[in-house]
């Protein structure tokens, strides 16, 4: 028992590396926020464009969504970080992590919003168009709010899954939570920093899971 506590909950190590872990939390939060905003905005934009049903454009949107949903983000991260400098494109670690995760989230979000658009009744579009709103305003005021409402539960789950992947930054030296923890672990020779990273992730993501539950429970329309 003593050995277990020494390994995972060493107070001296904890005190020493808390500032590093907190710095890691800050980096994780910043990248996660940027990924969520850019990924959702990108996905929503693509789904809106797709609803115009322009054949060539939709071909590219679907290709993009399928490819980025199929690829493991780590592979793309490594290519961008280690491969791109050779062709003269030098991106910082946090930038690579942001681009890849935002692109991945955008691909999933596009599909989720698109499913939302597809489940908006045809009659809703017809009502908007028949009242002279035209396609774009019907999209914006009639279809979009309904599609977003339908998309929230699956979207929240996907956002959680992808923002957790900020931990992949440890593979390219982005000093987010996991990276700070593994560095601290090798310096201290103790597993305690890893325990601290677990706590850090829970502090960030547990509230998000709870918010997700709450959002899911209030997505139904007012019913008679």
């Amino acid at each position: 028992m003593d050995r277990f506590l020494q390994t995972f909950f060493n107070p001296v190590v904890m005190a020493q590396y808390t500032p590093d872990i907190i710095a890691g939390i800050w980096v994780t939060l910043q990248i996660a926020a940027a990924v969520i905003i850019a990924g959702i905005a990108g996905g929503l934009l693509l789904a809106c464009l797709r609803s115009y049903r322009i054949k060539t454009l939709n071909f590219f949107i679907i290709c993009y969504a399928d490819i980025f949903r199929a690829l493991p983000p780590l592979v793309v991260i490594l290519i961008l970080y280690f491969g791109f400098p050779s062709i003269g494109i030098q991106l910082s670690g946090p930038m690579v992590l942001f681009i890849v995760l935002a692109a991945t989230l955008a691909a999933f979000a596009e599909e989720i919003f698109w499913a939302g658009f597809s489940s908006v009744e045809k009659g809703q579009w017809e009502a908007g168009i028949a009242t002279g709103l035209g396609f774009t305003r019907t999209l914006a005021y009639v279809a979009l709010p309904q599609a977003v409402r339908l998309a929230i539960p699956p979207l929240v789950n996907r956002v959680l899954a992808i923002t957790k992947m900020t931990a992949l930054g440890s593979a390219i030296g982005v000093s987010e939570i996991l990276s700070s923890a593994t560095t601290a672990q090798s310096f201290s020779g103790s597993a305690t920093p890893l325990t601290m990273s677990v706590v850090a992730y829970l502090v960030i993501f547990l509230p998000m899971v709870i918010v997700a539950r709450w959002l899911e429970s209030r997505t139904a329309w007012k019913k008679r």
Partner: protein
Amino acid sequence: MANRPMLEIVSLEKRFGTNTILKKIDLKVAEGELVFVIGPSGSGKSTMLRCCNRLEEPTSGDIIVDGRNIMAGTRRDLDRMRLQIGMVFQGFHLYPHMSVLKNVTLAQRKALKRSKVEADARAMDMLEQVGMEHKADAYPGELSGGQQQRVAIARSLALDPKVMLFDEPTSALDPELVGSVLKVMKDLKSKGMTMVVVSHEMGFARETADRVVFMDGGVVVEQGTPDEIFGAPKAERTRAFLSRVSG
């Protein structure tokens, strides 16, 4: 009727692939006239109505509303013309995420560019006309079908249309709710609205219609006053249809 034509359908044709739904339909509706369209299902009557605001794209032919051809002009012209053509659907299609008031003001604000004050006032007037002003803050999901349909009528009326199209407006309603919607339509007729109604409410047609049009197989088989069509139909197909629906 001596009035000028408000809606003219000129050799309207609609094909889906090799299937011809409408075969060179011609129909004139005068200002203030209520034309009632009957016919068996698949006769093309709903398609004809939906071609009148190009929700369904005609294969050929012209649709002329108050002297202007909606088949000519740009997409923007079409949206502007659609403001003058009110449409009421079988399934109401109110926006579920908006209050009744918002449902009636949306197109006024965003398409007609009316101010909020003006749009709200107009909406309340129209809701009063259909007897729904007390539900302005309710959501569509809280209303009965008949109430939803009346709000949908108010939503169209608020745009000051020149002609109103009704596509089986009472078919989705419970029988006891049909009356309230028909009453609103009757009021509208008495106020001089030009109306084209596709419906199976023969009693309403007898009482309110100026003219009854019988369609079958994508053509207008016969038309005349309600007395002529219901009392003494000339065509065999009309007689067969009427004996079927009257049981």
